[in-house]
C-alpha cells in the first residue's frame, strides 16, 4: 500500500513538475514566438554568469520579481476571497491533469505502473468539472476586488465559461459515443486501433467536426486570445486588475496551465493520446506487414514522447493563434458560442448517432 | 583761492538776481576762475549759497561743457572742429596739435601746462580753422602753416598771463552797411563818446522823452523788423504780447548765446558796437515796460562780454542806465549773464531756464515767455542783432528801415560767410540780396574751384545746391526755396567737399548739443550720428540712408523745441540732394573725393 502511495506520489510529482515547468517555459515561448512572428528578437537579456540562454532566464526573473513585489490588497476588497481567488484558479487547473494519461502502462519488474495520476472511470467528467470550477477563481477575484472593471471581467468570464462549456460538453458526446467510454485511459487505448488497417482510429478522424468545436470552445475556456475578453488589457484589464505580485502571477500561470490542459485534452481525445501509429505493446506492426519489436521501456518512452510532442504542437498552435487573431467582440463571442458551436455540436452528435447506428457497432 | 574768500564776491553776484538760484552759472564761473575747476566742495558751497540741493548743482555742472569737475591744466586750448572750421582744415590743425602736445582732446599735458579740448563751434568761422587759447580767439591756422601752429603750441605751453607770440586774428572787415556795421571798422568806436559822436543814444533820448511805449512798438512793427536770431518772428508783434496790465515785473533778455556753427555776427556787435545794443535794449525795455534786462552771453565769448561790460559801466556812469535814465524817470538795469557752453541755451526758453540757474532745458509752450518767462514773469527774448537794429529804426523812422528790405522783412542783416570762399567774414546787406551775390561779395569760391553747395542759415538750415542759390536771403524767400534764413550763417562748400563727412560733422554737433530732455531728440540725434559715423568708417549700408530719412522724419515736430527739427533738416536735405554721393561712398566704403586720413592739407574734409 505504501508502495502504491509512493509510486502515485512520484507520478504526481512528475506531472506536477513537468506541467509547472512547461507553464514557466511558456512565458519564454510566448515572448520568443511572438518576437519571431513580428520580426523582432524578443527576450534576450537576464544573463546568469554571462549566459542568457536566448533570454530564457527572463521567466526566472519574472518569478523572482513577482515574489518580491509588493502585494497590494485594495482597501475595500474582501481580503479573504481576494487572497483565495488566485489559488482557486491555479489549483483547479493543476488537478485537472490528474486524470490525463500521458503514457502507456510501465512494466517495472512485475509491477505495472499506470502513467496517470488518478485512474478515474469517468475521468472526462472529472476533468471538465475541474476546469469549470476554475472559473470560480476568476469570479471570486472579480468580486473580491471591489473594482468595477474586475467585476466586469469576472462576469464576462462566467458568461463565457457557461456559453462554451456547453459546446465542449456536447462536442465530446460524439467522442464518447464513438469510443464508448469516459475513462481517458480506455479512450486512448481505443484510439490505438487501426481504421481499415491503415489509418489510426484517432478522434480527429472519427470526429473531425467535434474536434473543431472542441478546440474552439476549449480555447475560449482558456480565456486567451482571441477569446480574452475577461482580461481585455486594452479595455477593462479584467478580473485581476487589483492583483499584484505573485497573486497576479498565479492568474498568469493559470492561463498557461489551462493552455496545457486543453492541449493535453485535445491530444488525448482527438490525437490518440500517447499512441504512436502502428506501435503496439509488442512493437511496431506496420500495415504492410513489417514488424519492429521494442522493449517495454522503449514503448513507454515512445508513448510519453508522443503525448508530449502532440501536446506541445497544440500549445504551439494555440500560441500561434493568439498572435494571429484579434480579439472577438463580445456579441461575436456569444454568437459564435450559442449560434455557431452549440448547434454544430448538437448536429454532430445527431449525425454521429446516425452513423453509429448504420455501422451498427462496428467499433 | 579758498571758497570762504569768495563769499563777498558771491554776495555781489547774488544781489544781481531776483532769485538766488539764478546765480548758479556766475557762481560756478567764479569758482572755476579761482580754483581751476569745480570741486565737490565747491558744488556743496554753491548749493548752500543758493539753497539748492547739491544734486542739482551737479546736474548743472555736468550739463554745461565749460565746467571742469576735475583739475585741468593751467591753460586751456579749445580747437573748433565744427563744419566751417573742418571745411578749412580743422582736422589737420587738431592732428598737428595732438601730435605736437602728445595728448588727445580731453587730456592734459603731464606737466599740467595745458588742457586740449575739441569743441563745437566757437562762432569765429571767419578765422577758420581756429582755436581758443584760454579767453583769446586765435586763427586762422591752415594745417599747412606749420610754424604758426608751432607758435600757438608754444604759447599754450607758456605760463598764463605772459606775452604771447601768436598774433591777434585780423578778420577781414569790409562791411560798412547802412544799419548795423557802419562802425565796425573803427577800433575806437566802442567807446561811448565815439558812439554819441556818431549820433548814438539820440534815438533813445527821443523815445524816453517823447514817445509812449505803444508808439515805440508801433514804430518797430512798421519797420518789419524780424527776429534775427533765426526764427524770424516780427519783433514788434512779440513786444506787443507783453501784458500791459500785469503788475508783475517784466524782463528784457538779450540772447547773445550765439552758437550756431557758421554764425558770428553777434560777436561783432558785442565787440565793436556794444552801445548800439545798449541803446536798443533801452528802447526795447521802455517799449515793454521792463526795468531789468539780462544779456545772456555764451561762455566762450570772453572778450565780447568784457567789451559789453565796459560799455555797460560807461552807460551807468553817464546815466544811460540805472535809475532815472537821463532824467526821464525810466529805470533800467542791465546784467550780463554768462553761459557755459551749451548750444541749446540759444533757444529762448532754454535760455530762460539756464538764466534761472538750471540746465538749459527748453520749456513747454504754452505758456509763452511773453506771458510767463523769466522767474514766471512776462519776458521778451530778442537776439542781439534784432535789438541792435532798433536804434536805427527809431532814429531814421520805420519807413527808412522797411524799404531797405523786402515787403515782409525790413532792413539789412549781417551775413556771416564762411567755408570755401576767398574772404570769409561778416557782410551786411539788405535782406533782398541773393545768396549768389553774397558768395561773390565774399570773393567767390576759393582756388577757382567750382561751387558745390551752400548752407544759407547756419548748420541747421537745409542745404542748397549750386543751382539753387539765386534766392533772396530774407526769411520768406528762403523758406520758399525749402531752406531757412536762420541765423544768417552762410557756409559755402566747393566741389572737393565730401557731403557725408559734412553731414557727420553736423550730426556730431547735434548729438553733442542735444539737451537730452525730449526722447525723440535725445535718442534720435545720437542715433543719426552713429549711423552717419558708421558710414564714414566704411561700414554703411544702403538701408542706412532710408533709415536716416525715416529717423529724421520721426524726430521732426515731436519735441518741445525745434532743436530736433534743426537736427533733422540737414540729414534730410543732404541725403535727398546728394544721394548719389552717399551711395557711392557706401559702395566704396570711402569718399570718392579726398580722404581725411591722407595727409592732404590742400583739401580739408
Amino acid at each position: 500500500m505504501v508502495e502504491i502511495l509512493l509510486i502515485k506520489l512520484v507520478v504526481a510529482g512528475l506531472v506536477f513538475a513537468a506541467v509547472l515547468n512547461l507553464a514557466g517555459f511558456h512565458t519564454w515561448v510566448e515572448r520568443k514566438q511572438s518576437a519571431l512572428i513580428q520580426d523582432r528578437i524578443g527576450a534576450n537579456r537576464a544573463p546568469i554568469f554571462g549566459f542568457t540562454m536566448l533570454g530564457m532566464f527572463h521567466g526566472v526573473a519574472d518569478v523572482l520579481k513577482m515574489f518580491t513585489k509588493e502585494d497590494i490588497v485594495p482597501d475595500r476588497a474582501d481580503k479573504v476571497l481576494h487572497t483565495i481567488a488566485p489559488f482557486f484558479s491555479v489549483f483547479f487547473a493543476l488537478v485537472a491533469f490528474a486524470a490525463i494519461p500521458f503514457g502507456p502502462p510501465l512494466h517495472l519488474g512485475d509491477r505495472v505502473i499506470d502513467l496517470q495520476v488518478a485512474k478515474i472511470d469517468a475521468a472526462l467528467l472529472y476533468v471538465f468539472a475541474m476546469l469549470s470550477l476554475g472559473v470560480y477563481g476568476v469570479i471570486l477575484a472579480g468580486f473580491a476586488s471591489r473594482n468595477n472593471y474586475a467585476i466586469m471581467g469576472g462576469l464576462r468570464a462566467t458568461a463565457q465559461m457557461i456559453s462554451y462549456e456547453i459546446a465542449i460538453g456536447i462536442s465530446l458526446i460524439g467522442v464518447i459515443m464513438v469510443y464508448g467510454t469516459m475513462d481517458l485511459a480506455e479512450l486512448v487505448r481505443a484510439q490505438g486501433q487501426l481504421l481499415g488497417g491503415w489509418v489510426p482510429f484517432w478522434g480527429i478522424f472519427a470526429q473531425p467536426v467535434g474536434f473543431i468545436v472542441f478546440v474552439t470552445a476549449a480555447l475560449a475556456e482558456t480565456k486567451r486570445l482571441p477569446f480574452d475578453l475577461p482580461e481585455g488589457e486594452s479595455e477593462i484589464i479584467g478580473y485581476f486588475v487589483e492583483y499584484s505580485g505573485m497573486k497576479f502571477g498565479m492568474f498568469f500561470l493559470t492561463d498557461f496551465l489551462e493552455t496545457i490542459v486543453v492541449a493535453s485534452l485535445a491530444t488525448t481525445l482527438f490525437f490518440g493520446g500517447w499512441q504512436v501509429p502502428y506501435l503496439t505493446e509488442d512493437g511496431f506492426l506496420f500495415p504492410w506487414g513489417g514488424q519492429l519489436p521494442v522493449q517495454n521501456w522503449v514503448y513507454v518512452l515512445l508513448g510519453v514522447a508522443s503525448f508530449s510532442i502532440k501536446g506541445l504542437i497544440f500549445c504551439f498552435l494555440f500560441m500561434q493563434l493568439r498572435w494571429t487573431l484579434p480579439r472577438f467582440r463580445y456579441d461575436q463571442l456569444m454568437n459564435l458560442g450559442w449560434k455557431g458551436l452549440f448547434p454544430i455540436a448538437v448536429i454532430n452528435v445527431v449525425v454521429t448517432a446516425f452513423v453509429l447506428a448504420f455501422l451498427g457497432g462496428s467499433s | 583761492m579758498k571758497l570762504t574768500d569768495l563769499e563777498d564776491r558771491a554776495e555781489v553776484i547774488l544781489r544781481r538776481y531776483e532769485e538766488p538760484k539764478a546765480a548758479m552759472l556766475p557762481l560756478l564761473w567764479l569758482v572755476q576762475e579761482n580754483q581751476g575747476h569745480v570741486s565737490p566742495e565747491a558744488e556743496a558751497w554753491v548749493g548752500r549759497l543758493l539753497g539748492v540741493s547739491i544734486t542739482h548743482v551737479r546736474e548743472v555742472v555736468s550739463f554745461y561743457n565749460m565746467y571742469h569737475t576735475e583739475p585741468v591744466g593751467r591753460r586751456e586750448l579749445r580747437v573748433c572742429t565744427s563744419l566751417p572750421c573742418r571745411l578749412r582744415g580743422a582736422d589737420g590743425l587738431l592732428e598737428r596739435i595732438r601730435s605736437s602736445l602728445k595728448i588727445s582732446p580731453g587730456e592734459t599735458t603731464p606737466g599740467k601746462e595745458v588742457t586740449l579740448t575739441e569743441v563745437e563751434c566757437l562762432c569765429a568761422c571767419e578765422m577758420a580753422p581756429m582755436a581758443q587759447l584760454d579767453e583769446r580767439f586765435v586763427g586762422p591756422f591752415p594745417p599747412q602753416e606749420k610754424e604758426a601752429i608751432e607758435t600757438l603750441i608754444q604759447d599754450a605751453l607758456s605760463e598764463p598771463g605772459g606775452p604771447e607770440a601768436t598774433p591777434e586774428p585780423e578778420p577781414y572787415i569790409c562791411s560798412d552797411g547802412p544799419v548795423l556795421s557802419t562802425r565796425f571798422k573803427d577800433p575806437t568806436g566802442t567807446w561811448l563818446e565815439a558812439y554819441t559822436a556818431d549820433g548814438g543814444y539820440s534815438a533813445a533820448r527821443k523815445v524816453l522823452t517823447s514817445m509812449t511805449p505803444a508808439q515805440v512798438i508801433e514804430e518797430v512793427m512798421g519797420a518789419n523788423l524780424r527776429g534775427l536770431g533765426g526764427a524770424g518772428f516780427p519783433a514788434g508783434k512779440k513786444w506787443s504780447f507783453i501784458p500791459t496790465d500785469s503788475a508783475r515785473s517784466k524782463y528784457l533778455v538779450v540772447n547773445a548765446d550765439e552758437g550756431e556753427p557758421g554764425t558770428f555776427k553777434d560777436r561783432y556787435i558785442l565787440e565793436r558796437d556794444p552801445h548800439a545794443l545798449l541803446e536798443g535794449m533801452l528802447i526795447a525795455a521802455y517799449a515793454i515796460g521792463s526795468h531789468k534786462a539780462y544779456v545772456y552771453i555764451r561762455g566762450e565769448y570772453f572778450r565780447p562780454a568784457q567789451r559789453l561790460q565796459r560799455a555797460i559801466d560807461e552807460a551807468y556812469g553817464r546815466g544811460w542806465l540805472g535809475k532815472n535814465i537821463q532824467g526821464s524817470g525810466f529805470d533800467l538795469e542791465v546784467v550780463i549773464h554768462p553761459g557755459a557752453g551749451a548750444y541749446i541755451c540759444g533757444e529762448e526758453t532754454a535760455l530762460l531756464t539756464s538764466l534761472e540757474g538750471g540746465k538749459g532745458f527748453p520749456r513747454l509752450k504754452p505758456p509763452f515767455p511773453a506771458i510767463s518767462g523769466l522767474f514766471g514773469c512776462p519776458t521778451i527774448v530778442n537776439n542781439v542783432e534784432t535789438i541792435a537794429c532798433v536804434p536805427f529804426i527809431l532814429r531814421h523812422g520805420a519807413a527808412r528801415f522797411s524799404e531797405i528790405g523786402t515787403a515782409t522783412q525790413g532792413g539789412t542783416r549781417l551775413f556771416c560767410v564762411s567755408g570755401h570762399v576767398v574772404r570769409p567774414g561778416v557782410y551786411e546787406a539788405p535782406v533782398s540780396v541773393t545768396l549768389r551775390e553774397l558768395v561773390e561779395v565774399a570773393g567767390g569760391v576759393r582756388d577757382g574751384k567750382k561751387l558745390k553747395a551752400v548752407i544759407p542759415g547756419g548748420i541747421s538750415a537745409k542745404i542748397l545746391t549750386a543751382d539753387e542759390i539765386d534766392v533772396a536771403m530774407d526769411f520768406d524767400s528762403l523758406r520758399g526755396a525749402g531752406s531757412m534764413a536762420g541765423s544768417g550763417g552762410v557756409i559755402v562748400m566747393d566741389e572737393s567737399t565730401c557731403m557725408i563727412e559734412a553731414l557727420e560733422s553736423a550730426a556730431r554737433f547735434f548729438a553733442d548739443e542735444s539737451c537730452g530732455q525730449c526722447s525723440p531728440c535725445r535718442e534720435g540725434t545720437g542715433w543719426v550720428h552713429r549711423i552717419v559715423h558708421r558710414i564714414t568708417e566704411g561700414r554703411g549700408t544702403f538701408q542706412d540712408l532710408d533709415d536716416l530719412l525715416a529717423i529724421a522724419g520721426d524726430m521732426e515736430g515731436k519735441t518741445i523745441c525745434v532743436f530736433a527739427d534743426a537736427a533733422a533738416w540737414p540729414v534730410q536735405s543732404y541725403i535727398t540732394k546728394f544721394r548719389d554721393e552717399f551711395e557711392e561712398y557706401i559702395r566704396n566704403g570711402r569718399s570718392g573725393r579726398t580722404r581725411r586720413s591722407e595727409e592732404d592739407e590742400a583739401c580739408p574734409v
Partner: protein
Amino acid sequence: MAVKAVQRRELTFWEKLYIPQIICGLKITSTHFFRNLFLHTAHLLGRLKNVPASVTIQYPEERRPLMSRYRSRHRLTLREDNSPRCVGCMLCETVCPARCITIVPGEHPDPDVEKYPIRFDIDLGMCVYCGYCVEVCPEDAIRMDTGILDLAAYSREAMRLDIHELMGPKLRKPISDCSLEFPHICASADGEMKGGWDSVPRSKGS
C-alpha cells in the same frame, strides 16, 4: 460633421466559415515564424549574417541616431568662464506647464549680468519634455540636447536635478563637493540651496 456611410462588404461563405481565414492568418504568421526561426538559427551558427531576421535595435548597445530636434534631458549651457549662462529670468519657470522648474535667483557680482540662479532645479519626475523652456529662454541657457534618454531613479528625490547636475550632466554629488566654477560658489546662500519646498509652510489659503 458629414456622415459618410460605408457599405460593408458582404462576407463570402468561405469567409463566414472562419476556419479558412484563420488558416490564412496562421499561414502569414507561421511564415514569419519559421523564416525567422531559420535565420536566427543560422545567425547563431554564423551564417547568413547579411539577411536580417528582425527590425529590433538592441538599445543600449545599439542606438538610433537622435533627430537634432529631439528633446532629451536638459542641461544648462555655460559661459566661457564655466558659470551658467542662465540669468535667472524665470521665463522657463513661468512657461513650464508641468511646473517642474524651481528657480531662486540672486544678485550676480557682475552688474552686467545682474541676475543668476542660486538654485535651478528641474524635477524630471514632473517634466513633460515639452521643450517650452528651451523655446522661451532668451539667453540660450537651457537646452535639451544631452542625448540622455535613460532617466530612471530609485526615488522621486533622485529625479530632481539641481543646478550642478544640469550644468555638468554627469555630476550628481553633494554641493559641498562641487568643484564647478560658480560666480557665487553658493556663498550667497551660505553654501546651501535655500528656499526648498520642504522648508516652506503650506498655506491653507492656497
